[in-house]
Structure formats: structure tokens, C-alpha cells
């Protein structure tokens, strides 16, 4: 037979064990008390019956019957026993039917079984009694029913019944309650985890606001799930974006080729279409290349190439590279790198990151605007700042621009694969630097990183 589910929980087993131990302790304690009480009371009763025997036998034989009867007469508790037996064993006086055979004969109190007779009838009792041989022959038996002890035993039994059994029941009930509750929570967690495994990533473990161990664990797991959900969603988002951004140029290629196949009448016409198709394919390949590159950087395999990089020279080089392009666009490019600042990093990657920022700035700054590329020190940090007078970014977009393929609606029409800032983010992360974009006027992009020790 299978035990009910809750009985197999650890909580329930522990409750059982604790209840069992508790019961054993209580029983031992009561047993000890009873044993003590019994020995104390027995000693008391024994003293009493020895006293009575002395009293009955203190005078001459002629007073014995009288003294015994006097002793037995006042017996409100029906506890007194006594008997005077002739040498032949016949009863002379008292309320004991016959002389019990089991007396040891040493005249000391012992436990015997005898039959009491009185007005209310015969009754066999087990009592403390002594038998004393009389000098004139015959035997005096004095006993006392230790009913007080029976009372105490009764009381203890009742106390046990009234105390221990409800306590045990309460313990068991608590155990059942706790284990059922734990069981329910585990089952609830189990159900939800199953749902999460099945792909329902928005599911969370229940918390009851009690801040108990379960709650703490659930909160921890929920935090983990939040992180996983964000990651999975961003991966899924990136997947969607990749699919979308690859599909756009590929669709264009397809349409272009299809149309050329149907409509082109000359080799030149066909060639023009093929050229256009190649441009589209190159764009798709550029996306794939950029993605692979970001993956490569994110996996941090380039740490080996880290060395001290003089940023001033690097910044001036980027300026030199982009100056003609800015000039063609009639955008003023100002490079400010007076102080030499050295950081520890990968020169090529840092160049690429800064070049990307400048590229963006120049691209998004309208004719007549300015782009300012500057290098400065701020405490023990090197700060490369690219400030432009372009459309800037709104606060909502600040977080998003580092995401792969994110393109502001304002720039949807511009060429580019939308991976530039993801690349910058990846490079900055690899270096342990900070990257921030803030609305200027225009847009301010900043890379800040720890300076090399001696720069």
C-alpha cells in the first residue's frame, strides 16, 4: 500500500520522530515520579502498619482483640485491615477472612493478596501487610490498602490521557498540516517549473510574503528566471532582427534578379541587375560578418592582445581617418586630445569602437553641424567623448541603441547594418570600460575606462 503523499515528506517524518521522542520522555518522567511516589508511600504505609501492630501487641494478650477492633472501627477510607488468628489459623477477630499463606514470617511488611470481609461483603485485595507471631500463639496480621497510590496512578493515567494524547494528536496534526503545506508548495513549484520547462518563461514561483526559507528561495529563483527571460527574449529578438535585416536585402536581390530575368533584353541590362544583386548580397554578408565579429569580441578571446594603448594618438588617428568624410559632408570635425592618456586594452578594437562612434556622429549630423571628438582625464579614468549636433536620441532610446540592429526610426532610411553600437558595447564590455549615450544637445557618446597605472 502506498502511503499518502504527505506522509512521505521529510517534514512529516520529523514530526513523527519528535512526537515519539516527546512521548517517551513524558512516559519516563511520569514513570520516575510514580516510582518515587510509590516507594515513598510504601515506606509511609509500612511505618503505619508497624505502628499499629506495636499498638495492638503493646499490652497483654487480653487487650488484643479490643485494640484491634478499636483500630478497625474508625476506618473512613476503608483502608484498614487487621486480623487476629489462633495458632490453628482460625480467625479470632478482624476483617481478614483467613491467614494468607504467602507471609514470609519475618514480621516485616510485604505485598500480599488477601480477602477482606466486612459488612459490605468479601473482597480480594492486594495490600501492604505484616504478620506478627504472638507470644501466646497465633498470629496478628495488620495491613493497609494503598488505595492512595492507586489514586495517584489513576490521576497520572488520566493526566496522561488528557495531556499526552491531545498533545500527540496536536503534534501529529501539526506535522500533517506542515507537511501537507510544504507538499502543496513543492507541488505548486513543481507545476510552475514544469510550465517553465515547457517554455512558459513568464511563469514565476509563488511567494507568500512571509520571507521564510521557501520565499527566499522562490525570490532567488525568480530573479534568476527574470535574467533568463531577458536573455532569451533578447536572443529571440536578435534572431528576429537578424532574420528581418537579412531578409530585406535578400528580398531586394531576389526581386531584382527576377525582374532582370523577365525584362532584361540586353547584356548590359542584365549586368546592371547582377551588380545590384551583388550589392544586396554584400550587405547581407556584411551583417553576418558584423555579427560574427560581435560574437568573437563578446566571447572575449582577444584578451591576449591587451597591452598599453596610447589613446591620444589613437584618437588623433580616428580624427585623421574621418576628417575628409566629415568635410565632404560639411560637418566640422574637431579633435581634442592634448593630454596623453594610456589604457590597457586592444588597440585595434578600441580604434574600431571610437571609429564607430565618430562614424555614427558624422553620419547623423546634418550639414553645417559639428562633431567633437575629445580625450580627457577624469580622476583615474580616461574619457573619450564624441559629441555631435545631430538629431540626438530621446531618453527612451538610450537603452536600445546598444541592442543589435536597433535603429532609431529617424535613421531607418540611412545606410548601415545597425550593429555599430552593439559592436562598441561589446568592445567596451570586453575592456571592462563604461559606455554611455546621453542626449546632449545632439548626442553625446562616452567611453570611460580605468587609466593604466602610470599614465
Amino acid at each position, binding site marked *: 500500500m502506498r502511503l499518502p503523499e504527505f506522509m512521505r515528506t521529510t517534514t512529516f517524518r520529523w514530526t513523527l520522530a519528535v512526537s515519539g521522542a516527546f512521548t517517551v520522555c513524558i512516559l519516563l518522567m511520569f514513570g520516575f515520579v510514580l516510582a518515587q511516589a510509590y516507594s515513598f508511600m510504601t515506606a509511609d504505609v509500612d511505618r503505619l502498619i508497624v505502628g499499629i501492630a506495636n499498638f495492638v501487641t503493646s499490652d497483654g494478650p487480653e487487650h488484643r482483640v479490643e485494640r484491634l477492633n478499636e483500630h478497625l472501627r474508625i476506618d473512613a477510607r476503608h483502608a484498614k485491615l487487621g486480623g487476629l488468628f489462633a495458632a490453628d489459623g482460625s480467625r479470632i477477630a478482624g476483617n481478614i477472612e483467613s491467614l494468607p499463606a504467602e507471609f514470609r514470617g519475618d514480621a516485616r511488611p510485604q505485598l500480599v493478596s488477601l480477602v477482606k470481609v466486612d459488612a459490605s461483603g468479601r473482597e480480594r485485595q492486594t495490600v501492604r501487610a505484616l504478620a506478627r507471631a504472638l507470644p501466646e500463639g497465633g498470629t496478628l496480621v495488620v495491613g493497609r490498602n494503598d488505595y492512595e497510590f492507586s489514586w495517584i496512578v489513576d490521576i497520572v493515567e488520566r493526566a496522561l490521557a488528557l495531556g499526552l494524547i491531545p498533545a500527540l494528536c496536536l503534534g501529529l496534526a501539526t506535522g500533517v498540516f506542515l507537511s501537507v503545506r510544504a507538499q502543496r508548495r513543492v507541488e505548486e513549484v513543481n507545476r510552475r517549473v514544469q510550465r517553465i520547462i515547457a517554455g512558459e518563461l513568464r511563469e514565476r514561483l509563488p511567494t507568500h510574503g512571509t520571507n521564510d526559507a521557501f520565499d527566499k528561495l522562490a525570490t532567488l529563483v525568480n530573479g534568476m528566471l527574470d535574467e533568463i527571460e531577458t536573455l532569451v527574449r533578447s536572443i529571440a529578438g536578435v534572431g528576429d532582427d537578424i532574420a528581418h535585416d537579412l531578409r530585406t536585402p535578400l528580398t531586394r536581390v531576389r526581386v531584382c534578379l527576377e525582374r532582370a530575368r523577365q525584362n532584361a533584353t540586353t547584356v548590359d541590362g542584365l549586368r546592371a541587375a547582377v551588380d545590384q544583386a551583388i550589392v544586396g548580397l554584400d550587405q547581407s554578408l556584411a551583417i553576418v*560578418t558584423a555579427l560574427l*565579429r560581435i560574437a568573437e569580441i563578446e566571447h572575449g578571446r582577444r584578451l591576449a592582445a591587451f597591452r598599453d594603448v596610447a589613446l591620444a594618438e589613437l584618437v588623433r588617428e580616428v580624427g585623421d*581617418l574621418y576628417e575628409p568624410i566629415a568635410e565632404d559632408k560639411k560637418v566640422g570635425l574637431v579633435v581634442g586630445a592634448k593630454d596623453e592618456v594610456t589604457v590597457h586594452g586592444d588597440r585595434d578594437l578600441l580604434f574600431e569602437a571610437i571609429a564607430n562612434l565618430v562614424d555614427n556622429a*558624422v553620419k547623423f549630423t546634418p550639414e553645417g553641424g559639428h562633431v567633437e571628438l575629445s580625450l580627457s582625464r577624469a580622476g583615474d579614468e580616461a574619457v573619450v567623448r564624441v559629441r555631435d549636433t545631430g538629431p540626438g536620441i530621446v531618453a527612451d532610446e538610450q537603452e536600445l541603441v546598444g541592442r543589435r540592429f536597433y535603429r532609431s526610426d529617424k535613421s531607418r532610411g540611412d545606410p548601415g547594418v545597425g550593429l555599430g553600437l552593439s559592436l562598441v558595447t561589446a568592445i567596451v564590455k570586453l575592456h571592462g570600460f563604461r559606455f554611455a549615450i546621453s542626449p546632449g544637445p545632439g548626442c553625446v557618446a562616452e567611453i570611460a575606462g580605468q587609466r593604466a597605472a602610470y599614465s
Partner: protein
Amino acid sequence: MPRLLLIEDDRETANEIMAELVDRGFDVDWAATGIEGLDKARAADADAMIVDRLLPGMDGLTIIEAVRQERVRTPVLVLSALGAVDDRVRGLRAGGDDYLTKPFAIAELIARIEALLRRPAESRDTILRVGPLELDLLSRTAKRGERPIELLPREFRLLEYMMRRKDQLLTRAMLFEEVWNYKFVPQSNLVDVHMGRLRRKIDMPDEQPMINNVRGEGFILRAPA
């Protein structure tokens, strides 16, 4: 006719490349496996080699290293689907002379092979000349005929590179890698813009153009006809 050795395991890719190369007047020998490739490379009767990195059971770089140890100096172009910068550096360190990432434009491949075959000799000349164009490497001056040309340092570097490789097609990627020494793909048409600047200084409107733009492929510096 220049002889080329192509070590590439994928038959289809090999056929495409060979067809193009033969069209351009090369004599191409093909090895489909690393072992075969190594044997043919050791024979050293090719003028240049094209080696794919991912060969069955062998890294193309192993072949290059083995061949270089035998003091075979044949120039090598490494082909690879591994585009990472580190892989590139490793490829060049192993003894490759140039590195091209798959997929590539055929024009890019041809241009790079031409460049390998016509590597400029280590000349001691301090003055480079192409037609009327003169570049003085010591005084850092340039002139076309009698007309002095003012060049910025970056323009001087670009022109020097082109003059050392006159009559060769130089792709944008080659220029960006060699002149600027950058390994990333710029988002903007940087090379074109820089080339435009240089061109305006070299070719005046009334002069015969020397810097020729080959559409979609790159640039060639030629003496005027």
C-alpha cells in the same frame, strides 16, 4: 603565364576559382587534399599558392609552415571561413603573405593574387616614379611633371603604396588593411573619400587621369597613355 597552385578541398569552390583564374590567363594546378597539396607545394614550381585553411584532416597553416621550413618562398594567399582577426594574425604568422576571408568577391581574390605575384622588390630608390608622377621619400615631396603637389601625411602614405604597385588593381579592403593597417570593415566609404582627396590633387581637370576607379572593385594607378 603565371602558375598557381590551389589547395582547396571543396570541388565546387575550386572549380569556380579555377575557371576565373584561367579566364584571367593563369595556369592553375589544383590539389584537393592536404597531402597532395603539400607534395605539390614542395615541388615549388608554382609562382603563388592559394591555400584553404580548413582541409580535411589538416589545417592549411600546417602546409604553409612545412613548406616555409624547407625554405620555399612561394607567396601564399590563405583562404578561410574563419574571419576573426586572431585567425588572420595566426595565418600571417604561419608564413602566409595575405589572408582572405570567405566569402569573397572574385575580383578581390584576383587583385590579391596579382599583388602577391608582383610584390614590389625592396628597392633602395628614394624617388618613386610613375609616368610624370614623382614621389621623393626623403624630402617627402611629390610633383606631377613640374607641378608640385602638397600632400598630407596620410595622402603621402596612400600615394606611396599605390606607386609601388602601379598598374595593379588595389581593392578597398587591401588599401584599408595595408595603408591604414586596420582590420575592420568600416561602415562608411572611407577609402573612396580619401582616394577622392588624393585624386583631386594628382589629376587636375586638364590632365589625363592617373588614378582610375574600377567600378565596384577598386583603384589602379597608371601612367597616362
